């Protein structure tokens, strides 16, 4: 076969391969949305993180503003310490609150940030005040509480 024909086909092949990689990165992966942007890290303490995993989304008002970087256990205070990478272009006040929420009834868990009213902003390495964090809602706990309340209601004389 002519060398130029071979070159053409090989060129097409390489373009197709690189194109497939680009599609995977942009359309399938989260390359287009988040990674690559500069981030700063903030941490928060929770008494129960439920099923939160590293790389889970950090959302504020429903918009993804960052990702969970690391989850560790604080052996002194017996709480979970969640480190989050938040995009640099989003700043949050110092008294912002964090809660672990669930997308839908059985969906994946994410950290919800709610902005406070203070003037000073959270800087890299800062932590959210422990009084302003809300742990994951554990479904079993809710159900057992509900059952307990129902049982108490039914047992009391009317």
């Amino acid at each position, binding site marked *: 076969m002519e*060398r130029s024909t*071979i070159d053409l086909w090989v060129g097409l*092949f390489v373009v197709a391969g690189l194109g497939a990689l680009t599609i995977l990165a942009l359309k399938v992966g989260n390359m287009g949305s988040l990674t690559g942007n500069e981030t700063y890290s903030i941490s928060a303490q929770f008494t129960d993180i439920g099923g939160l995993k590293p790389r889970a989304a950090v959302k504020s008002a429903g918009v993804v503003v960052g990702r969970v970087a690391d989850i560790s256990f604080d052996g002194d205070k017996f709480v979970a310490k969640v480190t989050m990478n938040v995009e640099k272009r989003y700043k949050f006040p110092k008294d912002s609150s964090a809660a672990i929420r669930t997308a839908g009834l059985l969906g994946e868990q994410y950290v919800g940030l709610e902005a406070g009213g203070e003037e000073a902003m959270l800087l890299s390495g800062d932590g959210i005040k422990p009084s302003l964090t809300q742990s994951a809602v554990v479904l079993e706990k809710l159900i057992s509480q509900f059952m307990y309340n129902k049982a108490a209601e039914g047992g009391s004389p009317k």
Partner: protein
Amino acid sequence: MFNRGAIINFRGVGHHTVDNVLRLGFATRFLVLTILHSGTCFRRMHLITRELYYTGVLSMIIIVVSGLFVGMVMGFQGYQTLKTYGSESALGVLVALSLVRELGPVVSALLFASRAGSAMTAEIGLMKTTEQLSAMEMMAVDPIARVVAPRFWAGVISMPLLAAIFSAMGVYGGYLIGVVFIGVDEGSFWAQMQSAVDFREDIVNGVIKSVVFGIAVTWIALFEGYDAPPTAEGVSGATTRTVVTSSLVILGLDFILTAFMFRGI
């Protein structure tokens, strides 16, 4: 105490082991030689381009078709299973993660071994049988630099590209069945996929896997061809061994790489 047959069998085991270790040593020396002698083919790129045509371009049809069908089957099967838990919208995640992490690199490497690897072995084996390699040496042309190295690099380059095409086609096949045919919500199909598939953790790891498979398959194929006994049976045996050995090596390497890459998740 021992009868003669047992001793001969026992000796056979030892002979076989020593033989295989020797072959492995020769294969390693062969790989090092190939890499050391790659200078020529990088200066004369058309040598690699020609091999890229035979290994990469000609493998594309089988890769595209099987990627599409694997994705479509996963669309069906995944939907059936996920429906039980009422989470059909996670179909995109299922299809994309299994393709990008595992099926893309592994299945395309298996196809590559049988489509391109066997052809490489047969070609080089036949070149050796018909004494073309010796003729090159007579003309002071190094057969490793002229014949082996371009094929090696062509295999290493085309493997990740083929794996990426396979994964992309698979995701498209899953989309065709899941969204177009069955009617899973298109928005949640893509959105959940994008939030679950990480570029560094999943896609880059998949590419690393396919590069490793590419090196392994091409190395095995070239070595089997170069080492084939110069007879018709020798070449056919070497071709069979290429497919069997590289398939086993791909699966073994995949387990090791997966164990390293996805430990913490």
